[in-house]
């Protein structure tokens, strides 16, 4: 992340995704979103919760032009099964 504008844009992306993830999670009884990856036609962003919960959550995230495979993104976010 190299500018305030990009940080702001990424925060907006996270908040938007969190909002919908909460609705989806609530629908089926999933409480905490651990990791998410969103892709549009030519960009990808991913977030992993590293600490806290709810509004206090702290996330580690990435955003890029272009798209990589989901497993690759998970690894980059520090999540491996």
């Amino acid at each position, binding site marked *: 992340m190299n500018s305030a504008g990009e940080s702001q844009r990424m925060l907006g992306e996270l908040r938007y995704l969190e909002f919908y993830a909460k609705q989806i999670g609530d629908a089926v009884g999933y409480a905490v979103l651990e990791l998410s990856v969103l*892709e549009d036609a030519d960009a990808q962003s991913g977030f992993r919760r590293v600490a806290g919960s709810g509004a206090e959550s702290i996330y580690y995230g990435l955003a890029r032009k272009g798209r990589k495979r*989901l497993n690759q993104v998970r690894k980059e976010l520090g999540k491996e099964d």
Partner: protein
Amino acid sequence: MNSTEVIVAVMALERMSGVGGLLLQKGRNRIASHLPFSETKVDALSSALRLMAEGYREVKRDVRQVWMEFDGGRLLIVQQQGTLLMLLLSSKAELDIIAGAASVFLSEHATHLAMLPSERLDFAAATSSSIDELIVTGPRVGEALRAKAEATISVWPEARKAIERLLSKVMGRAQAVNLVDRCIRNSVGLDPYRMTKEDLRKLATNILDQVPNTGKRRALAAELEPQLQELSL
């Protein structure tokens, strides 16, 4: 392509290893729903997914895929041209293969899915036929879907650079970038990050075909093949 083929393909997706259920919907029209949840939960989930799709559409985000890992489960959401496919996956699922298969499914059935209404159908009226249908599928459909998913490649960034390099010989850089963008936009249903080798060759040829000068077009077409071979295509 008809409804039966869509249902068979949906069942093949559902049978893939690690898939615990799926939901296929277009707007309020639930086309297929096989989930291990109560009807109330499925209704709530369906609404939440629809709101998310509409929300991103309203802000002009062409979201293709969303992956969500919750504490209690994992959801893969893939959408194309207003149709949304959600898969419930276990930790054993081969994530990228299933994402590829979901994308292949939506592309292959895009024409039929595009014709379906986005308003909820009266299920009783829609199934009032006196003939009961039993659809039996073998493992072959699933194997074919998996093979197609595995065949989808992800060398688009490199391939795009090669195509733009070629075009730059006969036009300005910005013009080349715009031409590539325009051809992708016009290729309805094509996801450049999930193309087979054949799709990529077709797209590249189509892009070069837009060069107006016949001589230059032929020269570029002759140079295309070595470029693709460099990318192991």
